[in-house]
């Protein structure tokens, strides 16, 4: 935990030092390979996600909603009852996997880079929300030309904050594979205001 204090302090100092003119809003969409949802069809349609972001200085907040197909939702909402060992079937409906992240975004024109962490929430079609979908880490880099930009992001999902801390602990020892290996790639198209 103490190892996180130094980088956090650096981030806060940078945030205070950078002029407020860097505040901006973002709207965008992203495309992710359809095979990520479990579809083995090589011609599977890409997954679509909607992006809303806000950055102030280098602080960065974002909400990404990934539209997930029914078979992915079913697979990720089906679980084994820990008390009786029964398989509890999930929900065979499309869903939005919502990721609410906070982190930092660095802009060195025309290049941008960002790193975020945050919790995940699942919205099932029909109005029901669903917990137990973990947390995520996202790293992204791209280019920005005034009011628009393109970037590529990688998202790693963890079952819990505990698993995420363990992954960062390994990264502190030089092993970044727990964070970067198997990241879900997304190509993002963003408008900046």
């Amino acid at each position, binding site marked *: 935990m103490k190892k996180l204090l130094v980088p956090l302090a650096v981030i806060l100092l940078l945030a205070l030092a950078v002029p407020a003119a860097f505040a901006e809003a973002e709207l965008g969409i992203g495309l992710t390979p359809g095979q990520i949802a479990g579809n083995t069809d090589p011609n599977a349609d890409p997954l*679509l996600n909607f992006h*809303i972001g*806000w950055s102030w200085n280098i602080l960065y907040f974002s909400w990404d909603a990934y*539209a997930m197909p*029914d*078979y992915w939702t079913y697979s990720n909402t089906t679980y084994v009852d820990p008390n009786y060992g029964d398989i509890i079937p999930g929900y*065979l409906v*499309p*869903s*939005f996997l919502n990721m609410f992240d906070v982190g930092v975004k660095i802009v060195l024109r025309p290049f941008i880079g960002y790193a975020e962490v945050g919790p995940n929430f699942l919205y099932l079609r029909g109005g029901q929300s669903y917990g137990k979908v973990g947390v995520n880490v996202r790293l992204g880099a791209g280019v920005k030309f005034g009011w628009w930009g393109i970037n590529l992001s990688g998202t790693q999902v963890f079952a819990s904050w505990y698993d995420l801390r363990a992954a960062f602990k390994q990264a502190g020892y030089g092993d970044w594979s727990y964070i970067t290996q198997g990241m879900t790639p997304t190509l993002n198209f963003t408008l900046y205001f």
Partner: protein
Amino acid sequence: MKTRKLLPLIILAVAAVLALSSCDALLDGIFPSNQISVDVAVNTTSGHHTDFLTGGYVSLQLTGPGVSSSASAYYGSWDGLYAHYYFTFTDLRDGGYNLSATYVGSLSSGTSAFITMPVEDPSNPDSTGKSVSILMTIN
């Protein structure tokens, strides 16, 4: 000047409200993945079985949520009693669908059926289909 500075926040707020209020509609638009497989089985009491093989065909009309389409099919298979004509409609939303089948040949007849989506077999997550058979007798 203040309005200009608030504009990005206003845009974000509007986008968030729109997104939150249209979640189901967005998902329904992105994933209309149901499909219907239809087998129209045609029999005749007048002995004109050869009509099935010599140009008679079935026209099937499908109407439902956001869709109105038709397809035609010629003879597919014969089981000794019925001639079977096969159709598949894909990318369908949840809801009720009317199927109206018409046999067109030297003799003509018609019938209809009503089915509802969605899929009812969650144990097979690759299955997005539903099958229905429509029996028709021409005289």
